[in-house]
């Protein structure tokens, strides 16, 4: 993986935010691995949905997952926080190592994993509660009751999701009164409120208009300074715009996983080229 960090990657450093450069220039050049997926297979009943996946997701990067419908990309990120277990027929083999521990270990509590690995869904799904209660929900269930601390968390999270200015005067109104794009940013803020390590995004802009999409994309760029992000997207331009690494999934397999620049300029696999050039999918 190291030798793949070619000139392209180094040039990109120049336009990155100062904090990013500082960290990348720090002694540990090699970014640490957040998720290491090893020989991972997943079945829904008889359907072999993911086949021998090997992927490694790095810290403070945006990793995009692209591929045609039904290729298993959503299934893969839902495996990363074990949401896939909500499907009763799902079963898995292989390992997904999160920060040194296999998340499928019997001793790994799923609530603990999901507290560290947040998720933003395809369709905005705020709770039918006030904006404030939406954001405070996560901290509250994890035992934070102090009103002052909650106030701080709510403001910080809403600012972090770039929606504070739009909603600061109506925190007590129902979140369903907001537009779709605003709702999605509320969901991102809700996720930020418990300060996770990783944020999984499952086609977060597919239900949004272009302007809202742009806002969410800009937000993803800002968030990667503090979070590792895995984003599934149907939109290849989006992957090209916002991600550092891209994985191309096809029929449940990883065809190619590399730096985004490389995938979109000189892919090694013919199928990747066919897909990104719009020949299918």
């Amino acid at each position, binding site marked *: 993986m190291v030798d793949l960090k070619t000139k392209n990657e180094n040039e990109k450093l120049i336009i990155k935010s100062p904090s990013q450069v500082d960290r990348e220039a720090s002694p540990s050049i090699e970014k640490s691995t957040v998720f290491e997926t090893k020989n991972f297979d997943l079945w829904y009943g008889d359907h072999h949905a993911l086949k021998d996946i090997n992927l490694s997701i790095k810290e403070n990067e945006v990793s995009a997952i692209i591929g045609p419908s039904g290729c298993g990309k959503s299934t893969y990120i839902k495996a990363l926080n074990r949401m896939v277990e909500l499907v009763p027929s799902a079963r898995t083999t292989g390992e997904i190592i999160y920060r040194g521990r296999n998340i499928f270990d019997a001793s790994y509590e799923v609530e603990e994993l999901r507290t560290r690995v947040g998720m933003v869904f395809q369709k905005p799904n705020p709770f039918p509660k006030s904006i404030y209660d939406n954001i405070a*929900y996560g901290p509250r269930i994890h035992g934070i009751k102090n009103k002052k601390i909650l106030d701080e968390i709510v403001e910080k999270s809403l600012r972090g999701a770039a929606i504070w200015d739009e909603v600061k005067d109506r925190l007590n109104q129902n979140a*369903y009164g907001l537009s779709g794009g605003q709702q999605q940013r509320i969901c991102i803020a809700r996720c930020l409120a418990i300060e996770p390590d990783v944020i999984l995004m499952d086609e977060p802009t597919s239900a949004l208009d272009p302007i809202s999409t742009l806002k969410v994309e800009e937000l993803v760029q800002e968030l990667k300074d503090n979070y590792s992000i895995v984003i599934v997207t149907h939109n290849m331009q989006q992957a090209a715009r916002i991600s550092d690494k891209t994985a191309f999934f096809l029929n449940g397999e990883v065809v190619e996983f590399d730096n985004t620049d490389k995938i979109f300029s000189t892919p090694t696999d013919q199928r990747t080229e066919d897909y990104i050039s719009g020949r299918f999918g």
Partner: protein
Amino acid sequence: MASHGLEKGQSVQQLIAQSRNKKGKKIIEKSMPILLIITALISVFTTIGIVFTLIFETFEFFQRVSITDYIFGTEWMPFSGNEPTYGILPLVLGTLKVSVIAALVAVPLGIAAAIYLSEYASDKARRIIKPILEVLAGVPTIVYGFFALTFITPILQQLIPSLKIFNALSPGIVVGIMILPMVASLSEDAMSSVPNSIREGALALGATKLEVSLKVVLPAALSGIISSVVLAVSRAIGETMIVSLAGGATPRFDFNVTDSIQTMTAYIVQVSSGDAGYGTTIYYSIYAVGFTLFIFTLLMNLLAQYISKRFREEY
């Protein structure tokens, strides 16, 4: 139409035109709406008729008994030979005792059952349990009545020795069991209609199943749950057979639940099945009591409607 297939040169459109021009069809088309309106009006007029009779006879009652004595009176002794008194409060209190006990039984159990059915039960368990619950709702109330009198009361007497044969506690518990399926079933409907995406949102934040059920699904379904409770309680208020059989016939102005009581409905049964002559004050009193009962259930129903509108969660 004794035709054998299409005749030569005859098109389907011609056949349709022939049929369209038939007289009978036009008459039926015109007259059906009128018939349908009449059937709809029958139920409307019946309701109006009942309410009108109630009001009319109640008015007659209040010619003989002062309305303030009726509303604020604490003694209900219509059968007292020399000086009958008609103070409704003891009967209202009897009804309230039974309804409150019933609600205390049905609301927690019903909502707990709804949470189980909607959030925890497997499809298979739900398919078995829900119909059983609905059978419980179909048991005739007279059966519940002697169940209360001959089964629940003796058991309760073991626990509370001072409990009388006729009391408020036993029918209250049994009315609670009767309305439990209503609370459970309607609340389960309300909780099941909360979209899954919202549950997933909470699970993805690291919430446990119980936290999702109690802090997301339950509040989201609150309007449906509250209106199910209000509807069930209004059924408890109007319940007759159980309280007639197991509650007794002693109107009492106190908050004691171990003694014999009389509810509004039980009083009406007592008079209707007795030999109160037409035109007597006692005869008119059942209309006044019936009207009072009607006001109670009407208010409960309006409350249920208001609540389900007011607290409707949008999702």
